[in-house]
């Protein structure tokens, strides 16, 4: 069945699943989960090399020979300035000019700082980055990020790693309805149900890490999420029925068998 492809900054993607690379039990499970997910876009963080054990965290060594679109994030940044610095470092790797702007101050909620996020998005978009800001699910802010040059906007469903699902479907619906760039639901999803909900609301894709990496069986969950994305997207494209208060019989009664 033909499905419309997601295109970001002119790049047509083979999957609507953006997968994080943190917190898996081990590199083997991670690679199997990546394969099962079918994801083309993988996210990463940028950190100092641990000089005592330099190859311990070097994640890319486990992915050599496979082809992905790398989406490094600016996690750890508390200000636009820090995020911009991390973005430039990520680009200097020569691996990608895509950047997920992620700026959080509150360690308890890790909610994105909207003002710093907007600032960083503006600067980085002007510098030629493909900017995908992780943002709160505020329709006005999401529009402002688009106007600032974001190539896609990534509102959170709930705080990172909580698995609470989509706390404000009304807002997310508005964000999607008014957007002229792809909307990727990033953070807070817990299970396939949340993914289907996001996709049925019309999201262009979802970004997940913890719900896959910390599932009892990450590989199986990656597969479940992949299918949920496909089911939700197909359902959205197919167009669901209107909800009604009372029943409608599936078969009319005109030729009902009576005595």
């Amino acid at each position, binding site marked *: 069945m033909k499905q419309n492809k997601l295109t970001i900054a002119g790049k047509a993607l083979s999957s609507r699943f953006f997968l994080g690379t943190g917190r898996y039990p081990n590199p083997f499970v991670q690679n199997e989960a990546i394969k099962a997910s079918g994801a083309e876009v993988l996210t990463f963080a940028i*950190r100092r090399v641990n000089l005592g054990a*330099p*190859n311990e965290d*070097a994640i890319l*060594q486990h992915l050599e020979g496979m082809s992905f679109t*790398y989406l490094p994030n600016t996690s750890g940044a508390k200000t636009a300035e820090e995020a911009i610095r991390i973005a430039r470092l990520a680009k200097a790797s020569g691996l990608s000019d895509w950047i997920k702007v992620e700026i959080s101050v509150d360690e308890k909620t890790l909610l994105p700082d909207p003002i710093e996020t907007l600032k960083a998005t503006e600067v980085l978009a002007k510098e030629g980055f493909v900017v995908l800001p992780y943002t709160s699910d505020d329709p006005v802010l999401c529009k402002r990020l688009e106007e600032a040059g974001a190539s896609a906007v990534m509102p959170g469903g709930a705080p990172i790693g909580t698995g609470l699902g989509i706390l404000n479907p009304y807002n997310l619906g508005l964000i999607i309805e008014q957007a002229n760039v792809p909307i990727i639901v990033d953070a807070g999803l817990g299970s396939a149900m949340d993914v289907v909900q996001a996709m049925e609301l019309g999201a262009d894709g979802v970004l997940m*890490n913890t719900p896959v990496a910390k599932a009892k069986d990450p590989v199986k969950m990656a597969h479940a999420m992949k299918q949920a994305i496909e089911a939700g997207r197909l359902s959205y494209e197919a167009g669901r029925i209107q909800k009604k208060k009372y029943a409608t019989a599936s078969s009319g009664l005109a030729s009902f068998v009576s005595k």
Partner: protein
Amino acid sequence: MRLLINGEEHNIDASTLEEVVSHFELEPHLVVTEIDGSIIERSNWSVTKLHDGMRIELVQFVGGG
């Protein structure tokens, strides 16, 4: 040479950035470097002279969401 690398003081025998990277046995294509806040492109590692007290950052991609 006394260098501040990733926030720690190191005394190593290196006069260029390339030598610092190989001193720690890092995979050059996986590492990004900064000296005193400025990114140094990989192609300039061998010609970037080091001085005592320089602040060097060696960073890489790690797992993240």
